[in-house]
């Protein structure tokens, strides 16, 4: 018996002798979520430091005799003189499919009351973006379900497309529509059993938004059945600036897991203007030198290192990024806007005037561009909508001139009429993305002049009628368009016949 006790005592002795080395520091000052710390001589840049009471900080400023840390979490109980210790770890967040359908904070902790998240892996929040060797050019489409975007400003998997516009112009709606559309495509693709089908998982990062807006977004995703394919990273306006600063990087780490594991993911940063403001606040408290509009000098790097993490990798998956920027009075030449415009592969500009005129989504065709171009479009869309952007641009120019006089020649009048019809056709209600095959069918009908005899104010009704005709009575034809992804003569003839059939049934 005594041998057994000796063994236990030996084990206790072994444990008791196990020394742990910690590097410590003392809080000298603390204000607005930022602490200045004496000591911490071994701390690494971006290392997590442990504060009393479970709060975690990130060492951002390593100075000669003090360390500046942003604190993530509750700072109410921290005070001057408290001891802080290094952890030897860089800030990491949980990653994996266990996060799908969940709402987490900037550190990956669940905030939706659905219990703990089941994850096995953690990824560092800050990572170096993939280099040029491992990248592959963007050539596979990512359908937003918004006809104006898919036909004129196509987005590809691995692309970074900025969504920019004033407040209340439908920026978030476009991103939610895109997420809903991915879920719809995933459901169809997974049900088809096609082994080549690659689902797109979505990550929605809400930075500095009102909690009520986040709840509304969650409800929209849940109602559309898209939440099961989506991770929501919430850093609402009430969070401290450190959480707002870290949230997009945490979301990017979660997206990278999908990309690294041969899957495709879409990430929405809503929005990076508030992210820049949070970073400015941190930088000013850390007493970093400020530059234009009081932003620190590295505000470009703040967003470039984030957006460069979106890529399509050779032999692996992809991460597509949709950053959102809010402009003031339509000024796209502001500091943060121009920075992000120059980093991304194109932008979708939303105009307040168009929105107020009832043209929704309020996409400005002239200012919007996708630098990947038609490389990220399926052939069928190129066939039916290849010239649309040019036609609409011409229409806008003509419409501007037409305001000054009423004597227009027949050709100009016809062009204006056609332009107006296209504009009507592109009107689409929120949270109702259209499958690409249906978009092809509608654009085909438009190109073949089926909407010409219809009054402009009735074009939306006609388009809805055509969509419902195709979805209810021509499902097989839509499936054929989807699988072939290109219009051959036979398919064109079938679409023509179907449109003729609809024309007879439609009474304007």
């Amino acid at each position: 018996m005594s041998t057994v006790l000796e063994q236990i005592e030996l084990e206790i002795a072994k444990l008791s002798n196990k020394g742990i080395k910690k590097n410590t520091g003392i809080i000298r000052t603390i204000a607005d979520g930022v602490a200045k710390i004496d000591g911490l001589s071994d701390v690494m840049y971006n290392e997590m430091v442990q504060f009393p009471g479970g709060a975690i900080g990130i060492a951002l400023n390593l100075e000669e005799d003090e360390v500046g840390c942003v604190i993530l979490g509750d700072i109410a109980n921290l005070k001057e003189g408290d001891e802080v210790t290094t952890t030897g770890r860089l800030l990491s967040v949980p990653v994996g499919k266990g996060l799908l359908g969940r709402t987490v904070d900037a550190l990956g902790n669940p905030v939706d009351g659905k219990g703990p998240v089941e994850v096995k892996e953690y990824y560092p929040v800050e990572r170096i973006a993939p280099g040029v060797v491992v990248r592959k050019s963007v050539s596979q489409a990512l359908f937003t379900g918004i006809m104006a975007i898919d036909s004129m400003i196509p987005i590809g998997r691995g692309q970074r497309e900025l969504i920019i516009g004033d407040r209340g112009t439908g920026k978030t709606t476009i991103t939610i529509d895109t997420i809903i559309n991915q879920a719809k495509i995933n459901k169809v693709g997974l049900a088809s059993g096609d082994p080549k089908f690659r689902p797109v998982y979505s990550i929605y990062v809400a930075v500095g938004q009102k909690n009520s807006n986040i709840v509304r977004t969650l409800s929209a995703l849940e109602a559309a059945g898209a939440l099961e394919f989506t991770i929501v990273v919430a850093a609402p306006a009430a969070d401290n600036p450190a959480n707002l600063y870290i949230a997009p990087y945490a979301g990017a780490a979660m997206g990278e897991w999908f990309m690294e594991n041969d899957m495709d993911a879409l990430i929405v940063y809503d929005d990076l203007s508030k992210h820049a403001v949070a970073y400015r606040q941190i930088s000013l408290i850390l007493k970093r030198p400020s530059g234009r509009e009081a932003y620190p000098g590295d505000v470009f790097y703040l967003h470039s290192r984030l957006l460069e993490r979106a890529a399509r990798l050779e032999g692996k998956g992809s991460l597509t990024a949709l950053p959102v920027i809010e402009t003031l009075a339509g000024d796209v030449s502001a500091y943060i806007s121009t920075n992000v415009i120059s980093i991304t592969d194109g932008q979708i500009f939303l105009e307040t005037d168009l929105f107020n005129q009832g043209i929704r989504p309020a996409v400005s065709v002239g200012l919007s561009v996708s630098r990947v171009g038609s490389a990220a479009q399926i052939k069928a869309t190129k066939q039916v909508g290849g010239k649309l952007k040019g036609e609409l641009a011409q229409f806008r120019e003509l419409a501007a001139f037409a305001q000054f006089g009423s004597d227009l020649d027949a050709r100009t009048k016809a062009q204006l009429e056609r332009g107006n019809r296209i504009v009507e056709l592109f009107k689409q209600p929120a949270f109702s993305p259209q499958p690409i095959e249906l978009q092809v069918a509608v654009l085909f009908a438009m190109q073949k002049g089926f909407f010409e005899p219809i009054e402009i104010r009735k074009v939306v009704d006609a388009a809805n009628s055509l969509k419902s005709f195709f979805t209810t009575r021509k499902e097989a034809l839509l499936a054929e368009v989807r699988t072939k992804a290109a219009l051959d003569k036979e398919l064109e003839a079938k679409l023509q016949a179907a449109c003729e059939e609809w024309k007879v049934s439609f009474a304007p």
Partner: protein
Amino acid sequence: MAAHAKAAQQLARQLFRMSVVDGTVSAERIAGVLAFLEKNRPPNPVVVLKAYRRLVAAEIARGVAAVEHAGAVDEAMLGAIAAAMSRRYGRPVAATATPNAALLAGLRVRVGDDVYESSIAGQLAALASAV
């Protein structure tokens, strides 16, 4: 204001560098620095002196292994700790002992801002944070 504080920090660092001889702070030099400051008051004497004090205190702490212990620690053990720390930091480190019943059992050694924890209280705290 910020510029003044920065200048005070710089002066404190300069004075501190002058106070170090062969890697350790010299009492004579510190006395000299204080006498100099007495005669030539800088713009923010309190700020300079506080910053200077902090730098000197940190340097002194780097040369002392402050051993907190629950239970008996003999001179031989303190000597062994001092020798081990001197080897580790490549500079002479003296050991001082302070009893601390809150550790329950074991030792905690602090050298500068490094803490070597080998106590039951430390292990319980680690366990509590892991649960």
